[in-house]
């Protein structure tokens, strides 16, 4: 499913008149099957953009196109939810509201009118997919740890079979291992979709961006300042990113350091740490071979 934004702006309703637009004149495209990472300083409008993409709020100006069709308002003039988009909210506490994990998992598909047996089957597959087990079914969501809550929150959204999965800072507050697990499970979910599943991943961790992104969207002060392939973005625009208060992944730092020291540029096809290290080691190995 392709999602396109045309000149989209959004201003939160507010008591005083002096509020500003949290999103300003966005133009961008979210293509089917891609992994898009969204980065930007706190308050730059990332979460607001995610809510727009799910149809929780409607643009105050501009248009949202789903596969070329405009997402219209409901009969009553409210924003219209987009069923095919699954949104995992920034704060998992707001996402879980049933008394047990099992009920919470069934909540979404039940509203969609999915049959009971089908829901049962899905719960079993999906609880495994997020790295938990059926032993969790009867637990209350409130008594889970932070990392478990996140995984259950993701599971509840996957239960609804989305074509586009939006994750708003799913790794915030987790240890590196917990973050890796989440990244990995999202990757697995996407791969299982045969190129039809889109991932939109909001994060403050540049190393996570380096891992799987096809494209990176950089937001600053309600505007999109870059939408680019991560290699080009981080290698060419590190100074601009710094000005927006953003870092670059460790792997790119290594490449930069290397370039600076040896005056030589290594071309890479991915920013994953292992890949970059591999390339650097390969370079030295070759140097050694040449010397001999």
């Amino acid at each position, binding site marked *: 499913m392709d999602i396109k934004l045309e000149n989209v702006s959004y201003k939160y*309703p507010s*008591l*005083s008149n002096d509020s500003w637009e949290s999103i300003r004149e966005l133009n961008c495209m979210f293509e089917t099957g891609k992994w898009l990472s969204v980065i930007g300083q706190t308050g730059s409008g990332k979460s607001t953009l995610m809510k727009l993409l799910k149809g*929780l709020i409607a643009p105050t100006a501009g248009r949202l196109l789903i596969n070329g069709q405009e997402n219209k308002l409901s009969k009553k003039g409210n924003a219209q939810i987009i069923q095919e988009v699954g949104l995992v909210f920034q704060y998992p506490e*707001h996402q879980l509201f*049933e008394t047990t994990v099992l009920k919470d998992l069934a909540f979404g598909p*039940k509203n969609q009118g999915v049959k009971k047996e089908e829901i049962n089957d899905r719960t079993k597959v999906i609880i495994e997919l997020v790295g938990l087990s059926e032993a969790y079914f009867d637990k209350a969501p409130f008594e889970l740890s932070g990392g478990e809550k996140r995984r259950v929150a993701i599971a509840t959204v996957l239960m*609804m079979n989305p074509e586009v999965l939006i994750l708003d800072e799913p790794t915030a507050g987790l240890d590196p291992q917990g973050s890796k697990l989440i990244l990995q499970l999202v990757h697995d979910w996407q791969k299982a979709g045969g190129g039809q599943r889109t991932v939109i991943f909001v994060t403050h961790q540049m190393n996570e961006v380096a891992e799987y992104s096809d494209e990176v969207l950089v937001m600053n002060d309600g505007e999109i300042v870059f939408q680019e392939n991560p290699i080009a973005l981080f290698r060419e625009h590190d100074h601009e990113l710094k000005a927006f208060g953003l870092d670059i992944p460790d792997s790119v730092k290594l490449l930069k350091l290397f370039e600076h020291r040896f005056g030589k540029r290594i071309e890479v096809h991915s920013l994953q740490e292992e890949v970059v290290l591999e390339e650097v080691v390969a370079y030295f190995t070759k140097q050694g071979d040449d010397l001999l």
Partner: protein
Amino acid sequence: MIENVLVGQFVETSSVFHRLDPRSKLISIFCIVIAFFLIDNAAGYLLAGLFVFGCITLSHIPWRIFLKGLKPILFILSFTIVYHILFTKGENLLFHYGILSIYIEGIISGSRLVVRIILLVLITSLLTLTTKPLELAYGFEVLCKPLKKLRFPVEQFSLMLAITLRFIPTIVMELDKIIEAQKARGVNFEDKSLMKKVLSYIPIIVPLLFTSINRAENLANAIDARAYGDGSGRTRYKTLRFETRDYIAMSISLFMVGTFLILKMLGG
């Protein structure tokens, strides 16, 4: 929803109401509420309406905001008026069908009550919109000082008031977030009968209570951590002082009470 709940929301403008001492605002509002309860004729409603209109204009806060504050009570208002129209008996029959008979008196008494509620809500919104919750609680505390002699826990009570006022918007915002999360999971709050709508809010209450209790616990710990104790004998960063405008405001309110008393006696 948050934009429709005015309690505890403060709007910064430069108006005389913002500069008034919280104590004089509390006393004045108290008087005016009493005055409004005395109203029982058309002249009184007209005067009260003009008074509220004048105050709101003076506050420099847009009307839009006050009207929003009325939205949540729309249901209560319509219920009130329907109840009165259906069940008030009188002498002037307007309409009769089966067991249903509607009297002019019913319409009049219903509208009166509705107008009175609207005026009361508007004038008390003025208080909370122009006073920060903390100032309001402080004013309340100082005014209630004499009750301390009767061992009434004034400081704790005012802290409670401040916290309540401060957290109502937070809790409503929380409610908004939970509703949003439920919408994202396929709950439709739109195409439902009223009964179903009310029922669909029940699952929201559970997480709301949970997060609120959590927050209360954290807050209690924070208060303890800062050694608040029972609050007695604490000093203030800012002390209150009555200015001329405060005496004027209180006089006007007292004057209102007098006027409505006279109107009532004349009318009765």
